[in-house]
């Protein structure tokens, strides 16, 4: 019964590290995408599909200051400033939404009666696109930050509520029994079992919510706002400026991708104990 003859399984850990590393093939994929774009841009008029290089150049030139936008009533506008406004709103909505949804999801997983009351509301809201609320919020709260943040907050609440509830349901009962037989108090069970065991799925829910939040925030700004990347897109759409729209979209997409990558990395770091952490893709 010597240990040295027993192999320690570490396949899981190795697999995750490999997924985190970049595959040279992936770069080939990006190159291919750019090539297809470039080719299509050659065939189509630039007013419809601008070439990738022009879009990137536009993104760089208007990153810190975009004087052209002042014609449309956007004084002191820049892509960076607009993106910051949008990102602030998303972040705020994520924090507020998570603060509501996580405790609610965890409690309803254990309290049948509260769950029977809240679930129907959440499920009804969950089947309809949250976007439906946008015009109502614009009337009630005007075209400021509040209506955009509220819209995204509702979305975050629905997504994270379900994730937190499922996470608490999925804890194998044996862990709580085991902790009790070792002498853990109910508070210790909450701190040492319930919270660590649910963190991976809750973080996964937050990541999904974050991915959807960008689009909702942007569309809310498109419908009515004074600032933000969505407002820029709306203004440029009025001028049928495809290059400008694509530059703004590229920035939004890059920020969303980088945030998603950071979230994936953070989840990976926090859940090293799990057998497999999906890093790329769901």
């Amino acid at each position: 019964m010597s240990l040295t003859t027993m192999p320690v399984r570490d396949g899981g850990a190795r697999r995750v590290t490999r997924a985190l590393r970049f595959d040279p093939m992936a770069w080939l994929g990006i190159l291919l995408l750019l090539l297809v774009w470039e080719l299509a841009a050659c065939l189509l008029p630039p007013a419809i599909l601008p070439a990738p290089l022009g879009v990137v150049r536009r993104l760089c030139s208007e990153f810190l200051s975009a004087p052209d936008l002042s014609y449309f009533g956007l004084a002191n506008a820049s892509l960076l400033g607009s993106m910051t406004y949008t990102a602030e709103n998303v972040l705020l909505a994520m924090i507020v939404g998570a603060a509501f949804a996580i405790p609610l999801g965890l409690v309803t997983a254990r309290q049948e009666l509260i769950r029977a009351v809240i679930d129907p509301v959440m499920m009804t809201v969950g089947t309809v696109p949250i976007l439906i609320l946008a015009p109502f919020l614009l009337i009630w709260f005007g075209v400021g930050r509040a209506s955009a943040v509220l819209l995204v907050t509702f979305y975050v609440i629905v997504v994270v509520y379900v994730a937190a509830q499922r996470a608490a349901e999925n804890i194998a009962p044996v862990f709580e029994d085991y902790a009790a037989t070792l002498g853990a108090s109910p508070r210790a069970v909450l701190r040492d079992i319930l919270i660590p065991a649910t963190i991976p799925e809750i973080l996964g829910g937050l990541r999904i919510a974050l991915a959807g939040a960008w689009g909702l925030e942007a569309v809310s700004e498109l419908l009515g706002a004074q600032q933000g990347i969505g407002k820029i897109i709306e203004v440029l759409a009025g001028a049928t400026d495809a290059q400008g729209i694509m530059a703004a979209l590229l920035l939004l997409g890059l920020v969303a991708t980088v945030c998603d990558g950071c979230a994936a990395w953070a989840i990976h770091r926090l859940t090293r104990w799990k057998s497999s952490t999906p890093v790329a893709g769901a």
Partner: protein
Amino acid sequence: MKPLSPSRRRAIGLIVLLCLAAIWQLLSMIYPAEAQPGEPMIAGWQVIFTKTLLSLSDYWQGGLGVRSVAEGASRGYAAACLTLIVNSAITLARVLGGLAIGTLLGMIGGLAVSWSSWGRRIVNLPMQFLRTLPLLAMVPLFQLWFGTNLFGQIAFTAYGVSVIVFAGTVNAVANIPAIFIDNARSLGASQSQIYRSVILPGILPGMRSTILLALGTAWSAVLGAEYLGAQSGLGYIIVYAQQFAYLDRMFLVALVILVFAAVFYTLFDRATRKLLAWAPQTSRREIAR
């Protein structure tokens, strides 16, 4: 703690929803402010199903033997109902058309790319980027490309759906247990036989959640397109009414959308569950190990 029986739970759910409806009614009585003369901010149910419904006939543009208000006719239930039916049909055509085309394209593309591991590795990063690129922010771009007609909205919806289905298919193929493929290979199956007999049925359980997700995306995409520039459809009526702050009309049309979305979701959920009755339930308990 005693678990509630499913019928008990359903009864509580119904009571909760009825309570919400009653609270709305109560609010309409204690807060009678009007957005416009004769247009209440919060309309009671008795108003919504009579006066508000009638006012929808304003959006009827004539035809089918029913004259529009613009042509001098007075408001009528016939025109109001036709407004709802025609605009619902347009919206549903956009949702279903986009869903069908997008699912088909996404699945074909996903399966084609999954033929070799090379393909999967090449598309991985571009796929991640396209999926992360916020769909709803792309409405103006698609309008620029395809115009604000039915084709443009279906193209937009189909794009949003196909990105999700594409990624879902690639993931589902990658997640098929290797042992099934090894087993088929050891029995002498060729690559194309493996595709037909192992991979195609093998991805179906994984595709279920993908299609349900795509359904939600299709609704979001259509609503986004209708809020921003379309000239017909239920979403268009909502934003058109919003410009005059007709909250009661917006509320009524939103209710119609809510019913459609819920019915669709339930139908899809039931149908796919029945089709996949053979699939073993993935044990979520495994996660704990």
